[in-house]
């Protein structure tokens, strides 16, 4: 059956952002009207952003489409438009069939109502008819495993029970087209497993599903097709495995690279502007996971805009708790105390293997002038990466498998002297008299 389920043509959505408040008050309107004659010429055009920019694609009946992209790519906006929650600014969408939207789990749940009452309420909100809810009531309760708590107000539920119940109701929606937005991101491991299982089942039943997620494993497991969005545009439209792999390989999906395309908005001043920060392996690949024994490079790309500047790039490393692990200054003799010509620079700092501790490291990038101290920019959370220590690598862990504290974990040479017992040579000099 290759019938069309969804056709999206040239979809675009414009949002207003900036200092203008999202809502006004009558008082403001009145004051502004009264003061208007005195403030001619002060109009600021509102800042806008295209959350979606000319998006086009088609979904066939029975397909499971995974939509991926980093935060702000437009994935949720796309789902909102398909769910008719918000209107497009331009473009057209044709949807063939009833749509069920799962943009959030537990929409409309009221804490004062009991589990039973909330099942009816939530079901009605999601679009189920009363007869349908009654028919599926027992199934829903069994899926959520909350038989004993049906008549307790939901405010007494634990978070786990709440999520299970909310998902149970939503999971029993039977529309022709299902739109799902990262609902799997909440809850504990067993809940996520349950959700994934149900999603798989829904896909196998032949329903059309559009699934937005950050979890590549979920996307490759559940979806046949993938759509990669970035900054509101379609980057790639193809097989889910391939799209997911492209996303992982590029610096779009990772925290290990950050770019500032718009120089006027990039961190810095008239002397220096930061353009990008990246984490690279020895081979040059951008990565957000490194082995503890591999050297890792942190690279800073910046534009020097005025000639003759003496600049010191520096990198600040913080652990998950925000404690500073160490700070690196570029004191390499090449540019030390030398004025730099205007141009684009890439400074790379090599951290040797077996120095960093396991865990997440957040890197802040800065460029400053010393004596007197001038900080041209300090981008605190520029990039982040993870250091992992598996048993195959040679590291300071040795055979110890437990938790090792410490801000750093250097692998250092140890010296041990040895002599068997009874041999006078082996006795320490202070003890020889006894």
């Amino acid at each position, binding site marked *: *059956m290759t*019938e069309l389920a969804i056709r999206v043509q040239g979809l675009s959505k414009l*949002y207003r952002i900036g200092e203008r408040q*999202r*809502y*006004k*008050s*009558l*008082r403001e*309107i009145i004051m502004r009207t009264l003061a208007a004659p005195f403030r001619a010429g002060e109009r600021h055009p509102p800042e806008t952003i295209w959350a979606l920019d000319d998006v086009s694609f088609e979904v066939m*009946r029975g397909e499971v489409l995974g939509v991926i992209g980093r935060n702000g790519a437009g994935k949720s906006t796309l789902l*909102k*438009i*398909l*769910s*008719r*929650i*918000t*209107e*497009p*600014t*331009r*473009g*057209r*969408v*044709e*949807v*063939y*069939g*009833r*749509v069920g*939207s799962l*943009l*959030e789990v537990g*929409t*409309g749940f*009221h804490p*004062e*109502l009991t589990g039973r*009452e909330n099942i*009816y*309420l939530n079901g*009605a*909100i*999601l*679009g189920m*008819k*009363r007869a349908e809810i009654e028919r599926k009531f027992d199934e829903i309760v069994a899926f959520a495993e909350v038989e004993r708590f049906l008549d307790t107000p939901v405010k007494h539920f634990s978070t786990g029970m709440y999520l299970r119940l909310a998902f149970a109701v939503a999971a029993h929606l039977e529309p*022709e087209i299902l739109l799902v937005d990262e609902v799997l991101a909440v809850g504990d491991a067993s809940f996520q497993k349950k959700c994934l299982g149900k999603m798989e089942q829904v896909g196998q039943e*032949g329903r059309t599903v559009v699934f937005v997620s950050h979890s590549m494993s979920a996307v490759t497991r559940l979806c046949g097709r993938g759509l990669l969005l970035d900054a509101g545009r379609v980057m790639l439209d193809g097989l889910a495995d391939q799209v997911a792999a492209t996303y992982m390989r590029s610096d779009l999906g990772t925290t290990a690279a950050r770019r500032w395309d718009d120089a006027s908005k990039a961190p810095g001043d008239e002397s220096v502007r930061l353009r990008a920060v990246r984490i690279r392996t020895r081979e040059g690949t951008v990565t957000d996971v490194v082995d503890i024994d591999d050297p890792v490079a942190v690279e800073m790309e910046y534009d020097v805009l005025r000639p003759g500047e003496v600049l010191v790039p520096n990198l600040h490393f913080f652990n998950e708790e925000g404690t500073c692990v160490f700070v690196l200054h570029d004191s390499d003799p090449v540019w030390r105390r030398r004025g730099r010509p205007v141009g684009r620079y890439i400074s790379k700092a090599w951290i040797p293997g077996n120095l960093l501790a396991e865990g997440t490291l957040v890197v802040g990038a800065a460029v400053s002038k010393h004596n007197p101290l001038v900080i041209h920019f300090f981008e605190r959370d520029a990039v982040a990466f993870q250091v992992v220590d598996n048993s195959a690598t040679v590291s300071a862990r040795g055979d110890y498998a437990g938790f090792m504290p410490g801000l750093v974990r250097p692998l250092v040479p140890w010296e041990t002297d040895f002599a068997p017992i009874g041999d006078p040579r082996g006795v320490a000099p202070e003890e020889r008299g006894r």
Partner: protein
Amino acid sequence: MNSAEPLPLVVIEPTRRAAALRLGELWAYRELLYFLVWRDVKVRYKQTALGAAWAILQPLMTAAVFTIFFGRLAGIASDGLPYPLFSYTGLLVWTFFSQGLSQSSNSVVGSAQLITKVYFPRLVIPIAAVLSGLVDLAVALPVLAAMMWYYGIWPGVAVLAMPFLALLALVAATGVGLWLSALNVEYRDVRYVVPFLVQLWLFVTPVIYPANILAPRLQRLGLPAWLWGVNPMAGVVEGFRWAVLDAPTSPGPLIAASTVTGLALLLSGAWYFRRVERSFADVV
């Protein structure tokens, strides 16, 4: 899945012209409307310590206070009816209206969670807020019957007009509610204006006093007596008293004027609401 029957097609596009009312869609979502009303009523009755009793006590206590200060001390006329009964009847239907206004004005903003996550015709929200007041009205009616039995006042044939008047009250409350709830999304301080508005409206409506004390003033200004009916609640309250208590007024022209204004409010409210509805999810 059978591909034989054609599946419903929905086209999503930016709305250019004025949005249609789409009453058919509203009817399709009537079950949701029912559930929202049921939710509001259930929650309201669970949360207040007095529960359903509050629906009775509120108009009753207000009527008691009015009787003392307006009926006795100020000596306001009451169409020949005992003042407590006079004021209670008016207050019954007035409370429904004022509750409807307060509940609906913040209803859309208060449902922000729903609006940003689920699709349904947004008109359902303020309508549900107003409808939930009908339950309170129904709960307080037996007390009215008890009072009428106590004073020995029985309704005449005019009581048949009561459902129509209740409907008119519903229309007026919904109309204003639609305006307020839609305005409140864009201008958040509207909800602070509402209590003030309701208070003023109470004094402008013949709840505390009968409408016929205004007639001579209007005549002196050369205006018709039914002009007061421009306030839709004037027709409702006067009419309610006439229908239920067989008051010796003939509020026909007043009711007619109120019906016109009430309908105008409803239609204009629905028009404005539908016009700004498309930006709700973005602004709320």
